[in-house]
């Protein structure tokens, strides 16, 4: 996913959360959004992004539609109803994991 291998397992969560916040996005847009939000710290590699998107689509969490832009096909992804529920589960899982990590490593809780 990025230069940080710790983030690798959270790719699907990141994609689902982004699509929950932005309704519909295409591949390039997702990479740029991640870059923008993380101020360039997290770089989403396309080699990981597209297989993850296809997997989520095949699992029924995402649905796609295409638009012709400048004589080329642009594929947009958006959440299905099932995907909407999955976002909540994935985010909860990620939060629980972060909490466990904080406990295990005796880190200070993040400042809110």
């Amino acid at each position: 996913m990025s230069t940080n291998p710790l983030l690798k397992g959270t790719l699907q969560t990141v994609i689902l959360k982004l699509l929950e916040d932005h309704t519909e996005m295409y591949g390039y847009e997702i990479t740029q959004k991640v870059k923008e939000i993380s101020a360039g710290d997290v770089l989403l590699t396309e080699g990981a992004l597209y297989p993850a998107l296809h997997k989520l689509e095949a699992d029924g969490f995402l649905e796609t539609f295409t638009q012709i832009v400048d004589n080329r096909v642009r594929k947009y992804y958006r959440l299905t109803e099932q995907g909407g529920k999955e976002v909540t589960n994935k985010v909860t899982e990620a939060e629980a994991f972060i909490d466990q990590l904080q406990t295990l490593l005796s880190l200070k809780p993040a400042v809110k």
Partner: protein
Amino acid sequence: MTPTAEQKQWLKDYLRKVMMYRETYEEVYDHMLLAIENHPEQQYFATVVLDILEKDFGGNNGLLVLEENCRRAVEATAQARFRNNFKRWFVPPLVIVTAAMFIGLFYLQLPNVKTGGALLLLFVLLVILPTIICSVRAAQLGYKYGENKTSIKDEVFRRLAFTSDHVLLKFLVTSQIAQQATKYLFMLNDTIGMTVGILLTFLLVWFAIRRFKLNHKYGKDKTPQGDGLRRTPFLWNLISMRLFIVLVASDLITRYGFKQEHWATEKFIPVNIIYGIATGVLVLMIINVFAVIELYRSEFKTNMIIN
């Protein structure tokens, strides 16, 4: 930078050569053009393309890995769904239907039962049904041949749909080999006959292996290159394996099928076992077709269709 029409065409041609599937080709093409458009003007087009290709996709090999990972992701899900559809027929309540099918098909093979060609009709139907399902699916999706590359989903679906044909083919070829082996090894008493029999058996085994290998290789070559898409699936299937299966089956039925002594009987246990296995294969093929139809229906429900 803004690429010119020629540069766009060059990129398109390049990606068409490298990429195997429609989904990945279209996405990567769009992605690369967007990245090029967002790139500063000062550099040469080729340098920019190579830079994006290397940084975003990990180079030429990265594109291939990306495609393979996409295919695996889709295939794993489709196969899991297909397996679930298949398993449903072996647990209540559908297991009752499976048992009834088995008993009914075995009954049809008893000597005093006149089938009126029902078994042959069922057999032919099972052979051509995957072709029909794939063709209907393609038509319903508005599939256009010609320049289009094949879709990952098309390939995965096609592979699963033709599982029954492959099982049947293996079964028929194996049974043919067994029959020939029996005929030549046990019915010919002299040494020459025995030798000829052994050689013929080896020849049949070699033919069967070669046939499978060729089919496997051609099947692989056809999809990635996209050339096979210029033919309609129906014609392609007809001229490849399907015709072979029907010919072998017709030969079997003509030679052995209608003779009284070869029908299943309650008196001779080995014959019953053989017909039991044959009936089992037939039942599995029928269930396979139902599982494929279910997969086809669920695909539409979850918007797994190609766009």
